[in-house]
């Protein structure tokens, strides 16, 4: 962090973010004392002190100073790119709650206030569900339309996409389900006919131009208005939920730009999905709506509970899976997940799913594009190919993470990162040029997945379903295994090419400066592999039904192998290999299909892929990106297995100058200001005296700066030689000496301490469980040093032979 001097310039250059930080601009603007309408906890002992003062009848000046020492707005807030103090926030909230509960017995109005305070959480969840559901519906409708815009335009009304344009038409045929006279491709509009080489080239050119236009608009908007809107956002949200502050990351401009550019990015044909960005959008909604409620606006810990619920809402609207969304939030995104949040997240996810359903973006009351409904059984022997798919998923996941991180690191460190707009345009051009010729990459990835998940029946006429129908008397649902016709073989090699293309292009696409998600491309890779394997197995079973492995269960005329199921299992395996989700993945997949019969194959594939991927590389994609960016994220799932002690990690080390401390009654304002300007520490312990080094408390740099600023401006007589007291009672001063400044209210009187011989395992555990930011180290009762979260992360990096300087933030 830059060492910013504090006189007048400190806050103006702080990133006082969006309206969530109607923050203190001390230089120039007016301080708003009406900001605090609930009793701040640090004022409690103040109120007590005030009473004792009036009780003992001290002189008027000290009374005046107590009165002026109301909590200064700005004390208790955090700087950008810093970690919050979970303990302080939680105790603030408990105090507030106690205050309301005790006041509620006094009058009916207070009782109503306490009831409404309790309900505010539920009301907030309702609003988040509504807003996120509405936005997701809008995103879906717009993305569908814009994707089809690359192909042509509807003459009935330009706002209809291809499917809706031909909705009422009677000219659709069985073989070409989307043909109608109202939908004109660009070739038809420009040159007049739709067949022939010239038409193909025109369509090709228009496709590539539209893709480039959309991508260019997306990256320019991101660059011009909200640079935080790029990427998927889940890694940063994970870090924010663990206590980090990134101002503006969940603000309203980020929300607007992410929504708009997500549609543009998805429509430009790039190999990315919208599920990860939808989580970010939902969390932005959550953050913005928190400002309506004081309880959540003021308290960072409570706000993070709401953000956990909002993350669940995001996945719920992306997949139409409320339970899966809650589990995803629990497993992947949240750091602390109290049980109360579980119920509220579920409520919010249901509200959002219901809102999305009533907007009805897909026209047939489905929630997600690939809602499949087959229920054909599977046989135990099929577990072998499912496990093979799991192994493939794990291998692909590990490969993808390694290559993607290497590519992102190259983008971070070399000249590639200096041309973001150009990079996006080049990648879009390559994607569009290579994707157009292959039918399976030309359509949007969600449509591809839904086609692959679909089980072929008599009613299907796509290339993939071109089987030779032997006897035509069966109904459409239980068709036996049939030999493949030539179209199926064409589809197979086209799919194989599409697989290679997607594997390679997604590596380059994820992490670009446009909103990009990872779920859909991974599922596509898995679905293609699964379908290829499924069709292979099906044909093998048909032509070699006398082999011993097929004999018992796959007689001719039986419907034994369902390629659609293989596609689903493959999709689950690849997604699990990349993100290392376990329970949430299985639940999402079975909510997508609606069939409990397939839990065992899905679980088998997910477990196998996780084991294989974990054997190759320990982290999922989101943790890997967190590490790449150097966020201070203390991984809750890792075990700390080394035998170091607290004194090996604490600062100052042997060779460093001794710990910078403040004394409780010997410092002047000038001393403190010098100390602050000379060092960059974000907090200072307060001791009784330099000789005894007995601990009194801990005070944060930001609070010190704000309080001294405020005192210089508001209190009479505070000059550089004024004494600063952290004690409860200030000694009486002769009237000639300058006024005294009492700063006990900003000091934390109960900092956490460990002894120097505490094993680091316990220290790391304390940090994780309590959410600490720093911890003081004592030796024989005397203050010896300090351990911060950054020190722990650097130590863990060192122990794992990684570069400790990659931890960037505090």
């Amino acid at each position, binding site marked *: 962090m830059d060492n910013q001097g504090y006189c007048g310039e400190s806050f103006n250059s702080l990133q006082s973010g969006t309206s969530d930080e109607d923050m203190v601009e001390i*230089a120039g603007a007016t301080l708003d004392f009406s900001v605090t309408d609930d009793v701040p906890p640090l004022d409690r002992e103040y109120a007590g002190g005030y009473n004792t003062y009036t009780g003992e009848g001290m002189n008027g000046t000290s009374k005046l100073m107590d009165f002026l020492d109301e909590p200064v707005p700005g004390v208790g807030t955090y700087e950008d790119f810093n970690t919050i103090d979970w303990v302080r926030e939680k105790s603030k909230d408990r105090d507030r709650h106690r205050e309301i509960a005790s006041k509620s017995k006094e009058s009916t109005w207070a009782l109503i206030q306490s009831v409404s305070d309790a309900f505010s959480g539920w009301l907030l969840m309702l609003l988040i569900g509504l807003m996120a559901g509405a936005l997701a519906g*809008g995103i879906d409708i717009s993305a569908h339309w814009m994707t089809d815009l690359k192909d042509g335009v509807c003459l009935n009304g330009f706002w209809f996409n291809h499917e*809706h344009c031909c909705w009422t038409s009677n000219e659709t045929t069985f*073989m070409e389900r989307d043909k109608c006279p109202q939908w004109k491709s660009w070739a038809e509009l420009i040159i007049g006919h739709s067949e022939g080489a010239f038409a193909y080239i025109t369509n090709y050119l228009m496709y590539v131009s539209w893709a480039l236009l959309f991508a260019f608009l997306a990256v320019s908007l991101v660059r011009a208005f909200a640079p935080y809107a790029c990427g998927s956002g889940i890694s940063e949200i994970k870090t924010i939920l663990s206590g980090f502050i990134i101002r503006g990351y969940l603000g309203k401009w980020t929300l607007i730009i992410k929504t*708009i550019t997500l549609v543009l990015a998805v429509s430009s044909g790039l190999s990315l999905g919208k599920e990860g960005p939808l989580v970010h959008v939902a969390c932005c909604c959550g953050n913005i709506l928190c400002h309506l409620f004081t309880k959540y606006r003021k308290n960072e810990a409570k706000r993070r509970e709401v953000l956990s619920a909002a993350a669940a809402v995001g996945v719920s609207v992306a997949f139409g899976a409320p339970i899966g969304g809650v589990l995803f939030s629990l497993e992947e995104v949240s750091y602390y997940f109290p049980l109360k949040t579980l119920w509220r997240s579920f409520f919010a996810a249901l509200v959002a799913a219901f809102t999305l359903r*009533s907007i009805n973006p897909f026209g047939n009351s489905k929630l997600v594009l690939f809602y499949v409904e087959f229920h054909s059984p599977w046989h135990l022997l099929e577990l072998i190919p499912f496990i093979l798919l799991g192994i493939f998923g794990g291998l692909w996941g590990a490969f993808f993470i390694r290559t993607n991180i290497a590519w992102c690191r190259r983008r971070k460190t070399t000249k590639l990162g200096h041309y973001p707009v150009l990079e996006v345009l080049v990648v879009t051009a390559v994607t569009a040029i290579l994707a157009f010729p292959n039918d399976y990459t030309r359509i949007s990835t969600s449509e591809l997945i839904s086609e692959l998940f679909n089980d072929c029946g008599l*009613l299907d006429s796509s290339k993939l379903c071109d089987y030779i129908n032997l006897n035509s008397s069966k109904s459409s649902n239980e068709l036996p295994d049939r030999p493949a016709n030539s179209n199926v073989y064409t589809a197979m090699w086209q799919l194989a090419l599409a697989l290679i293309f997607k594997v390679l292009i997604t590596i380059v696409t994820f992490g670009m400066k446009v909103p990009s998600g990872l779920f859909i491309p991974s599922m596509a890779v898995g679905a293609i592999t699964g379908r290829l394997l499924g069709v292979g197995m099906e044909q093998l079973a048909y032509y070699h039904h006398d082999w011993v492995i097929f004999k018992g269960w796959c007689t001719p005329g039986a419907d034994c192998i369902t390629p659609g199921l293989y596609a689903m299992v493959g999709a689950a395996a690849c997604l699990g290999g990349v993100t290392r989700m376990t329970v949430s993945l299985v639940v999402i997949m079975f909510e997508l299909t609606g069939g409990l019969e397939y839990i065992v194959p899905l679980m088998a594939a997910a477990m196998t892929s996780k084991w294989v991927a974990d054997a190759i590389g320990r982290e999922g994609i989101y943790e890997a990106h967190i590490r790449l*960016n150097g966020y201070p994220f203390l991984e809750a799932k890792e075990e700390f297995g080394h035998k170091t002690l607290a004194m090996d990690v604490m600062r100052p080390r042997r060779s460093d100058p001794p710990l910078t401390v403040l004394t409780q009654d010997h410092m002047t304002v000038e001393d403190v200001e010098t100390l602050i300007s000379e060092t960059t520490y974000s907090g200072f312990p307060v001791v009784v005296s330099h000789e005894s080094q007995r601990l009194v408390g801990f005070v944060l740099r930001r609070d010190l700066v704000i309080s001294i600023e405020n005192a210089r401006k508001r209190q009479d007589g505070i000059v550089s030689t004024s004494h600063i007291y952290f004690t409860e009672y200030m000694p009486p001063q002769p009237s000639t000496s300058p006024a005294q400044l009492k700063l006990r209210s900003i000091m934390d009187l109960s900092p956490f301490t460990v002894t120097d011989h505490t094993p680091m395992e316990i220290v790391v555990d304390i940090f994780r469980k309590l959410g600490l930011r720093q911890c003081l180290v004592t030796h024989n009762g005397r203050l010896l040093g300090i351990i911060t979260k950054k020190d722990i992360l650097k130590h863990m990096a060192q122990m794992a032979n990684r570069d400790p300087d990659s931890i960037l933030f505090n």
Partner: protein
Amino acid sequence: VIAMWALLTLHRWIIHSGLKICCMLLSTQSTEAKNSEDIRCKCICPPYKELPGKIYNQNVSQKDCNCLHVVEPMPVPGKDVEAYCLRCECKYEERSSVTIKATIIIYLSILGLLLLYMVYLTLLEPVLKRRLFGHSQLIQSDDEVGDHQPFANAHDVLSRSRSRTNVLNKVEYAQQRWKRQVQEQRKSVFDRHVVLS
């Protein structure tokens, strides 16, 4: 300046109005009579004997959505109708073209506004500022991190110009602050690659 004020209030209004419009759409959907164009019964009939497969679309209500009502004219003679209809699958579908139209139009208008604002910010505003205030008072919002008195320039410029109301001062101040935030974000993300790489 009026344009800036209008744009600033507009962007705050957009969020609230978006939510209101969506709620409105949800309510109108349930109350208004369904446009007859927005319902249909789609019957897919697979190939049967020599007949090719065919798709039939009609806008009938849900109770009439079956093979006998929708498949007209019936391509098979009377005794085969049952066998033919057994293989057909009929589904009742609904959509709301009003929702689709409203969503697309809202989306395009927001996109258009943002593009106009972006063009204004990158191209027109420096030109206008230079013409109105001259080079010496150009607001140095772009290049300085941690500059000492960022609002001094703004206040300076504002006070020297014609008398303005407090609201416009606040708008100018808010816009400058926002621009600086975006600048900081852009530096972290695009230039120094500190976040979100």
